[in-house]
């Protein structure tokens, strides 16, 4: 069997149903094999989009996303997508072609040292040196991608390896002597945590993306029902705990709710669940939650005590740890604390100015929420659109909010929406975009139309790069350097690609336009002409303490 056949047979063994990518010279033997394979191939129009689509597919389904590109520029174009997946711990396998083995290092046509380039942005990567190792490498790659703290794995395949012959033996077992993630939490540490919780007066749960990756939302719900401890989540934790639950505080951090930030700053115990105390969450580290003891549950030991020192670290799969804790947990006496939080919620609600005929972007998000009954998968680009999507759509289920949290990649949302839609054809998929971000991968309209992915894109069009403009307004004396956009006619663009475009200029048109779009079984661009100088509030300035919030309206 040739290397290319081994690859395709191995992908089938791994139950890969869809592959996003772009062909080229050094992957020709692989594409020849794919031609008749029982795997759906989706041709994106840029390799970056193939990586984002594989990422969106992985986030929406929980399966490993797979993408493929040729050597040189094919591989380098995947880089942003791989880095995006790495920062957010998304299981992905990226396959790249490479120039033939004998030419490696000779600056051959379309040669790039892609294993060298992707070393710091993959969980692990491989250059296949012998076709006899190929099946084992693929097996290891899928195992590494989905186990432990998931992440992207790259396999670089020289063209001659694709053509060389070997016997196909797909290994049943994995034996990597250096890799043994810890899944069960240490019982002694769990005991200490339970004790600390029982003694706490002002506890708070701070849940992140790890909760969703682990599939621990039911365990968290049980934990909260038993303890009545309020929950705040990170951006990537949205959907891990129902936003409309009485004990939900929504998102914390730079653009979090005031009550979440007040609560975490005044807490005496933080139970961190699959979160990593990112700078967008903590604000100025030395002033973060000064009275709080910290219990930190995470599968990755490097996340523990990296930014904030943990008092009770528990390494393991948060689903298993929470399940173990649920067996023994006793509720703390925290009525006064709950009352205080309730007061904050009433005093500082998440709100915006919603009068007159102008279209406020927050209003658009609320209308999308109502029209989709909260059941859609929402993807976002990066910037104001992302923060409003996080604040004003109520997420009830895990894997329904897909956003580039760590790397903050503009251009992520649209191709990720296509990947999510193809993985979850039963769902409505909405990309909340800005007029800047959408243009970073707008060519994927062809992919959406061609692959019959009827994704809806809400462009919150304020004719500028809103978040950067907001910072310029607040911190750079309104000098709008490089942030004012001249845009194409998005309706015509959509139509030219064979999709549908709708322009919305008045508030009363918002809801009908969304309803109309939902009835169209095609990709739709909704071009909402929103208030240009609307800001995302509340806001904690970069490097400030969470206490120093700018509240906007208040």
């Amino acid at each position, binding site marked *: 069997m040739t290397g290319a056949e081994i690859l395709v047979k191995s992908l089938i063994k791994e139950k890969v149903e869809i592959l996003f990518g772009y062909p080229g010279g050094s992957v020709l033997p692989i594409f020849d094999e794919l031609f008749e394979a029982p795997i759906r191939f989706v041709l994106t129009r840029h390799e970056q989009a193939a990586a984002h689509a594989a990422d969106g597919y992985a986030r929406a389904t929980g399966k490993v996303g797979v993408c493929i590109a040729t050597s040189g520029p094919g591989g380098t174009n995947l880089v942003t997508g791989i880095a995006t997946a790495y920062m957010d711990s998304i299981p992905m396998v990226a396959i790249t072609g490479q120039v033939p083995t004998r030419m490696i290092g000779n600056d051959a046509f379309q040669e790039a040292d892609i*294993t*060298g380039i992707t*070393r*710091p942005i993959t*969980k*692990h990567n491989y*250059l296949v*040196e012998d076709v006899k190792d190929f099946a084992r490498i693929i097996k290891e790659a899928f195992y*590494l991608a989905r186990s432990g703290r998931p992440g992207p794995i790259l396999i670089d395949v020289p063209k001659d390896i694709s053509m060389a012959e070997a016997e196909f033996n797909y290994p049943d077992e994995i034996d*990597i*002597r*250096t*890799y043994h993630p810890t899944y069960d939490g240490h019982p002694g540490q769990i005991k200490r945590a339970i004790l600390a919780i029982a003694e706490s007066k002002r506890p708070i749960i701070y849940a992140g993306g790890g909760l969703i990756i682990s599939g621990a939302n039911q365990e968290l719900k049980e934990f909260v029902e038993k303890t009545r401890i309020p929950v705040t989540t990170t951006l990537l934790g949205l959907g891990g705990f129902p936003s409309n639950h009485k004990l939900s505080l929504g998102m914390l951090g730079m653009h979090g709710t005031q009550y979440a930030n007040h609560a975490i700053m005044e807490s005496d115990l933080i139970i961190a669940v699959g979160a990593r105390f990112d700078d967008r969450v903590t604000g100025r580290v030395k002033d973060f939650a000064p009275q709080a003891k910290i219990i930190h549950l995470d599968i*990755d*030991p*490097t996340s523990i*005590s*990296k930014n904030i*020192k943990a008092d009770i670290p528990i390494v393991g799969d948060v689903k298993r740890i929470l399940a173990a804790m649920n067996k023994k947990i006793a509720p703390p006496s925290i009525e006064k604390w709950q009352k205080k939080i309730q007061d904050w919620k009433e005093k500082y609600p998440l709100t915006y100015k919603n009068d007159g005929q102008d279209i406020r972007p927050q209003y658009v998000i609320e209308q999308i929420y109502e029209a989709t009954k909260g059941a859609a998968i929402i993807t976002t680009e990066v910037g104001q659109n992302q923060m409003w999507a996080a604040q004003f759509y109520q997420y009830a289920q895990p894997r329904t909010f897909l956003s580039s949290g760590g790397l903050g990649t503009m251009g992520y949302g649209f191709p990720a929406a296509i990947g999510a839609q193809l993985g979850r054809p039963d769902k409505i998929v909405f990309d909340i975009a800005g007029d800047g971000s959408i243009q970073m991968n707008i060519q994927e309209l062809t992919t959406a139309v061609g692959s019959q992915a009827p994704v809806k894109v809400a462009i919150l069009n304020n004719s500028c790069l809103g978040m950067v403009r907001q910072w310029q307004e607040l911190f750079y004396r309104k000098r709008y350097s490089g942030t004012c956009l001249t845009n194409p006619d998005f309706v015509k663009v959509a139509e030219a690609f064979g999709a549908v475009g709708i322009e919305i200029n008045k508030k009363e048109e918002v809801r009908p336009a969304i309803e109309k779009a939902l009835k169209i079984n095609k990709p739709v661009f909704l071009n909402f002409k929103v208030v240009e100088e609307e800001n995302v509030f509340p806001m904690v300035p970069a490097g400030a303490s969470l206490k120093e919030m700018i509240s906007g309206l208040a």
Partner: protein
Amino acid sequence: MEHTISVLVENRFGVLARVAGLFSARGFNITSLTVGETEDPSVSRMTIVVEGDDRILEQVSKQLNKLIDIITVQDLTKKGFVERELILVTVKADSKTRPEIEQIAEGNEAKILNAGKDLLTIELLGAGKQVKEFIELLKPFGITELVRSGRIAVGKE
């Protein structure tokens, strides 16, 4: 504070680049790094001397452990170790200073490998502190070239 870390790694293409990349990407400072095969040819040992406080060392050790090709990471500083470094140093020596240099070499059990007209090349094998002091002693004479092997270390029982 200086820490000596002993790391067992898969003896495989690209592992050194992974380790070096990790240190540079995360801003950890390497004082010295040596690599060589162990008694098991599939395994190499890296001895890395790192500068940093306990918090940094904890991260260094966790981050190294996270790399797939790394087998074990041990901070030898915690439990005591013996270490050696080999240096070759060429120093200016005229008829007046030569006896003095030879005396310093003898006092440190260093060997004179090559004696030229105006230069002496000396080999010293020693622990970190001894090497440092030896170099300081030779500096006033004028060191023209210094070659160091980097430190290797073994933990004590």
